[in-house]
């Protein structure tokens, strides 16, 4: 049995390729990975008019078949049939921006030369028309010698015809594959592309008026940075303000499940494992789903609207001062949600040293996994009062933690770029796409994929670590009548005594030593771990956040709490980040370096905080 024909979607960045891919496949998508590289593989299914299924794969945007980044390398290798784990495509849908033909046709010409059947989607034809361009699609078809379909992915225009042309393309007998042409005819291709673009342009008036108008405000030397700051402020504000209600719903749901389980299960070990370990542990993490999704929603909107590149433009000067470029701003901003997609997004940085420096500092951006730790400690120790009449002290401390992370990252970058990742800057050159309204369905699809990744994480790593921790904390049981607490008597309690020796100088106590081990798996587990410690220590306590806060206030001093917060700003406590760094840097050298320097930094900063706080009598 033959597998379904494989159609590759290729094109320049900003051609609207992913929107067209979403429109053709709908929600029937699978996001995976190419083996050996961290480039995401987006594949989906589509049914032709006669009912035959075809598989579509959305390749990373590229300017040519001569790759200058990992992404572009995958695009080339797939198209040449050299990518491991991928068949050679049976046909290519080349997506071109109708308003940018002279550039996009160059890659199209290169792709046509490959010898695989090609269908050209003349995409975003509506925006081109809005910009005053009239194009002759039939003339383009004649010039290129391949079928051309005018499409508007976001309005589903031209999709039926595109499907019909894809049907024709895969029904053709296969031709012998041709090798990609060498770089030397790049100029020839470019000139030919310009000729064709000129020939098929019927009329042309003022260009991109709207984009220019917005840019004159957004890129303004004074207004621009103010707008960027305001956007960042609204984004972080929204993460907290909008998430309150959904977090409440999730908490009640978790509570309800916990009570239900308590009622069903007999009192004893199993109940404790299920209620305290599983439901409590996973629940403590899942409540942060709303915040993560809000943050991702903002980032996806900023990206889809075209603003993200403007932000990079505005930030380039600042980034250059620490040896990076505006390009690094995008992965670093994503790292505020989670360092894993952030580190993956560094693939677009073509300079290897600069990319490495960005990877190494990405974990210093305060990711959403730290929020559970921050919120609970701040809630327990920082009084809920206002400073200067209008700024909340708790919010201010949280903001300060973000700033510490950013300053730490800047300092680290400055040092790294002068030492281990020394190298000339690769510069900053980026296409600034047209502004567009982000499409709601694309946004939902993106968020859905993020939510799934997060829940899988909560359901696997976090679930497993909480269960293991619960077991380590519960056994062995102290003999009846012993005055040693159950936690101190357990395996984990004994291990933590070893760690305690190391972290005692920086003000850490037993609870923290215990929490640090499972927090290696994922930071947010620290909260669950501390909760589990208290639940096992005092089984009659009501479980939940309030109990944790009360316990914290009784057992911790303010300097200890502050040192703990500072530790979490810097400490590389996340297996996923370490794993992705290993994969992205092809070895253990850099992740080990990262773990080493971040732990060192965390230790020193937490220590300085503790000693200072004690010295000034807090």
């Amino acid at each position, binding site marked *: 049995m033959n597998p379904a024909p494989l159609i590759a979607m290729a094109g320049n960045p900003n051609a609207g390729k992913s929107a067209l891919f979403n429109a053709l496949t709908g929600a029937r998508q699978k996001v995976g990975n190419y083996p050996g590289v961290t480039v995401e593989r987006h594949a989906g299914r589509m049914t032709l008019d006669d009912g035959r299924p075809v598989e579509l794969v959305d390749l990373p945007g590229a300017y040519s078949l001569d790759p200058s980044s990992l992404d572009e390398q995958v695009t080339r290798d797939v198209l040449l049939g050299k990518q491991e784990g991928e068949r050679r495509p049976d046909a290519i849908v080349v997506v071109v921006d109708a308003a940018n033909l002279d*550039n996009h046709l160059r890659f199209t010409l290169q792709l046509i030369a490959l010898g695989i059947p090609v269908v050209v989607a003349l995409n975003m034809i509506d925006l081109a028309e809005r910009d005053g361009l009239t194009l002759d699609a039939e003339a383009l078809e004649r010039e290129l010698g391949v079928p051309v379909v005018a499409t508007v992915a976001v309005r589903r225009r031209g999709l039926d015809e595109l499907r019909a042309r894809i049907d024709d393309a895969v029904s053709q007998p296969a031709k012998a594959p041709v090798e990609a042409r060498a770089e030397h005819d790049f100029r020839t291709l470019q000139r030919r592309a310009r000729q064709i673009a000129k020939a098929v342009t019927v009329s042309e008036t003022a260009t991109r008026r709207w984009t220019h108008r917005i840019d004159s405000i957004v*890129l303004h030397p004074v207004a621009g940075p103010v707008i960027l700051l305001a956007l960042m402020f609204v984004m972080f504000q929204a993460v907290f303000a909008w998430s309150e209600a959904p977090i409440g719903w999730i908490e009640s749901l978790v509570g309800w499940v916990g009570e239900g389980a308590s009622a069903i299960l007999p009192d004893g070990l199993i109940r404790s494992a299920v209620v305290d370990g599983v439901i409590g542990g996973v629940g403590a993490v899942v409540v942060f789903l709303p915040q993560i999704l809000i943050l991702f929603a903002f980032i996806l909107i900023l990206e889809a609207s075209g603003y993200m590149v403007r932000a990079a433009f505005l930030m380039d000067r600042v980034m250059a001062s620490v040896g990076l470029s505006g390009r690094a701003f995008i992965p670093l901003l994503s790292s505020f949600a989670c360092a894993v997609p952030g580190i993956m997004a560094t693939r677009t940085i073509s300079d290897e040293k600069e990319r490495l420096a960005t990877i190494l500092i990405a974990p210093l951006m305060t990711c959403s996994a730290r929020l559970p730790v921050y919120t609970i400690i701040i809630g327990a120790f920082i009084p809920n009062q206002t400073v200067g009449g209008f700024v909340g002290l708790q919010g201010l401390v949280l903001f300060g933690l973000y700033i510490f992370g950013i300053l730490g990252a800047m300092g680290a970058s400055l040092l790294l770029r002068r030492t281990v990742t020394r190298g*000339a800057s690769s510069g900053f050159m980026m*296409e600034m796409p047209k502004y567009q309204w982000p499409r709601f369905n694309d946004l939902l699809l993106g968020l859905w994929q993020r939510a799934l990744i997060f829940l899988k994480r909560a359901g696997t790593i976090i679930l497993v670590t909480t269960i293991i921790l619960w077991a380590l904390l519960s056994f062995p049981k102290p003999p009846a009548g012993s005055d040693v607490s159950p936690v101190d008597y357990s395996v984990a309690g004994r291990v933590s005594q070893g760690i305690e020796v190391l972290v005692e100088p920086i003000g850490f106590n037993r609870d923290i030593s215990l929490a640090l081990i499972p927090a290696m798996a994922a930071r947010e587990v620290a909260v669950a771990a501390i909760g589990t410690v208290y639940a096992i220590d005092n089984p009659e306590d009501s479980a939940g956040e309030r109990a944790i806060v009360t316990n914290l206030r009784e057992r911790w001093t303010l300097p200890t709490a502050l040192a703990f917060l500072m530790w979490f700003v810097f400490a590389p406590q996340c297996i996923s980040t370490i794993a992705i760094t290993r994969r992205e840097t092809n070895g253990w050298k850099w992740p080990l370096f990262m773990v080493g320097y971040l732990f060192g930094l965390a230790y020193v900063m937490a220590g300085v905080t503790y000693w200072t706080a004690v010295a000034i009598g807090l």
Partner: protein
Amino acid sequence: MATAPDISAPLRLLDLACNQPARVTDVDWALLSPPEARRLRELGLDEGVDVALIKRSGVLGGPVACRIGRMTVAMRRHVAGAIRVERDG
């Protein structure tokens, strides 16, 4: 850089007034690093292409925004300084 007085100092993209239409006469590729030169070519910069300076960044010497053909491209100053142009109309 040559210090000899140049009577017809070439006009650079960087020197243009904002939104003044111009055409590329040639590019001093030697002023650019190989990755920069390559990216610039990929973005369609070539002799004869219509260009304009759209946005000069603030006083701190940040990047500039240029139009290349129908595309807007952010680039650092020295890159716009390597592109020689003639005013168009």
